[in-house]
């Protein structure tokens, strides 16, 4: 994985010093809160429901074991012994003190990490495929391109006060595991007829109040123009994105209001101009970065067979491991969704254990997924059993990946000052209701996603079943959505009808699964059956 050189290190060290100075000026009164807020947000520091919250960047979701261990240590030293992995592959801490924050950032910088641009109206952490570099179906590892974009977007002087936040995802396979088209810019690396790699740009997707799937605006951007094209996309947005209404300020609204053709025309015009400006790093820089993403020292000729005589292990292998492109290896996912647990939370001890196991069994590497789980990208199949045993002893062996228990949930009203309703208790009740493995097996793949407000951090629009918490006259209320998806078949869910209270929404989810099971044909997933039979039978069961 990528390693900082002295320049990268200097940049994060300078940022720590800058923020230390900003905190000093806030505490001595030179900066008002209005002046300080955007500065602290650009260092990932929110003022949340109970305290300050710090969001730490995990660039394209990739971590070393030393970095992961530091995340555990920070949880103990500065927080209350746990962290929360987010839907943007980051981690956040809920109980941070302002006066500690510069020291936390310094600790992070000591392991080549930071919290730069994890919030604020700027280009955020670049997300990617959690299986990058290991997936059997990728045409290249997308992370070097994400790293190139990370360096370009970090401290970009023109784009730190955009109309609104800006999220970029980069993938390199047909199967989209990063919800790429639900980003402000989604980039898919593709190969053209001549066999060259280039970038396909989708611009103007997003969830939130006005969910939109990003339209394609450029089929193929040559790699030696990638940064220039991204810069053109951003400049048009910075110039024309709406600033009169916070809810219409995302680029998706601009692309929608201008129309895809007109937005594209303006980008192409700006692009043609910027090509004359020499802002593109040389291909040699991309090649330099790529050297950090070469394969680990895989052993050749390892067997692919596994002893699956332990039924619990067998279930975990079936649920939580994926094909690796290297024979004898597998990709293993740690579910942070134990029955009745808090989705995405891990204790400091669990974080450190996951770090140690990465060192021992996955070439020192981990990934954070947008589904709030942790991935070991390169595990010898011969080590899977030991790995699973050690995870399971620490409460990390739950076998439910992409099943109904693998719920994405935002922190909701338990932690978030924007939320209208709690998300976590709903996730816990549903998880408990479907705790039995045979229940989950019968239902099969079902992506359930819960947001505690319309900002959609829990991706409810993209859930096969989505739940949106709203405030109805001071009382929590939950709307049910069906039919969303974030993969190759990206689609937005539809609200079933009137909302429910907490017990009612759990009951409604159960009814929806019953409708599916009663109507399922062959190998259909919940989503397939929904697409075939439509909303009516579900409505009938829910409200009839």
């Amino acid at each position, binding site marked *: 994985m990528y390693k900082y050189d002295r320049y990268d290190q200097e940049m994060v060290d300078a940022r720590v010093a800058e923020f230390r100075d900003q905190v000093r000026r806030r505490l001595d009164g030179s900066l008002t*809160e209005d002046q300080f807020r955007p500065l602290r947000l650009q260092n990932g520091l929110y*003022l949340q*429901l109970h305290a*300050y919250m710090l969001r730490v960047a995990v660039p394209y979701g990739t971590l070393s074991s030393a970095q992961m261990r530091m995340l555990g240590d920070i949880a103990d030293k500065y927080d209350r012994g746990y962290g929360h992995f987010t839907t943007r592959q980051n981690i956040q801490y809920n109980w941070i003190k*302002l006066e500690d924050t510069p020291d936390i950032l310094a600790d992070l910088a000591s392991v080549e990490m930071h919290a730069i641009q994890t919030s604020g109206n700027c280009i955020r952490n670049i997300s990617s495929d959690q299986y990058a570099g290991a997936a059997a179906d990728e045409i290249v590892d997308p992370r070097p391109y994400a790293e190139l974009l990370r360096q370009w977007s970090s401290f970009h002087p023109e784009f730190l006060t955009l109309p609104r936040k800006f999220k970029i995802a980069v993938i390199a396979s047909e199967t989209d595991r990063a919800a790429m088209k639900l980003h402000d810019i989604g980039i898919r690396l593709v190969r053209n007829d001549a066999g060259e790699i280039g970038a396909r740009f989708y611009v103007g997707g997003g969830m939130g109040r006005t969910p939109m799937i990003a339209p394609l605006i450029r089929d193929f951007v040559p790699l030696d123009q990638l940064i220039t094209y991204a810069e053109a996309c951003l400049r048009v947005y910075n110039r024309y994105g709406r600033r009169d209404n916070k809810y219409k300020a995302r680029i998706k609204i601009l692309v929608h209001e201008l129309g895809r053709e007109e937005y594209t025309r303006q980008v192409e015009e700006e692009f043609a101009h910027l090509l004359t400006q020499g802002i593109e790093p040389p291909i040699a820089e991309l090649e330099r970065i790529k050297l950090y993403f070469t394969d680990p020292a895989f052993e050749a000729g390892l067997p692919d067979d596994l002893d699956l005589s332990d039924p619990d292990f067998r279930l975990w292998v079936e649920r939580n491991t994926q094909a690796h492109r290297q024979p004898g290896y597998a990709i293993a996912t740690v579910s942070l969704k134990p029955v009745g647990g808090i989705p995405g939370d891990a204790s400091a001890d669990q974080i450190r254990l996951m770090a140690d196991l990465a060192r021992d069994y996955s070439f020192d590497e981990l990934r954070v997924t947008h589904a709030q789980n942790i991935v070991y990208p390169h595990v010898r199949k011969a080590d899977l059993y030991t790995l699973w045993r050690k995870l399971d002893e620490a409460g990390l062996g739950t076998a439910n990946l992409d099943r109904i228990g693998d719920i994405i949930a935002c922190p909701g009203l338990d932690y978030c000052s924007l939320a209208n309703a709690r998300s976590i208790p709903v996730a816990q009740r549903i998880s408990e209701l479907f705790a039995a493995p045979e229940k989950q097996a019968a239902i099969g793949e079902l992506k359930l996603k819960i947001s505690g407000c319309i900002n959609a951090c829990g991706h409810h629009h993209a859930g096969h079943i989505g739940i949106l918490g709203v405030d109805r006259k001071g009382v929590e209320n939950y709307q049910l959505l069906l039919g969303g998806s974030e993969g190759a078949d990206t689609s937005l869910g539809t609200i079933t009808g009137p909302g429910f209270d907490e017990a009612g929404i759990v009951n409604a989810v159960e009814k929806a699964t019953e409708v599916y099971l009663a109507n399922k044909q062959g190998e259909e997933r919940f989503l397939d059956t929904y697409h075939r039979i439509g909303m009516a039978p579900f409505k009938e069961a829910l409200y009839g």
Partner: protein
Amino acid sequence: MKILTGNDLKTGAVVWWDGEGWSLHVEQAADVTDAGADLIAREEAARRVVGAYVIDGQNTADGVRPAHIKDRIRALGPTVRPDLTLKPADPQAIDWVI
């Protein structure tokens, strides 16, 4: 009654105006009547508190309670982690929050 809340500037802790200073305990919140705006201006300028705002509260037998669920959760802590609330030893504490 009107009560005043915010976060301690340095620590971020949720605090309540008790008539003389800031308390961690909502039970001690004072009725600020129509003095909220002045108190906010003064206390924020003195950098003792950040993000202060006035909310509706009720005086109950158990003490002052915020009217809205969001502020009740702020007053106690996350409902899903009783161990991290202000009353970790009291399993009934959550009852007045939700």
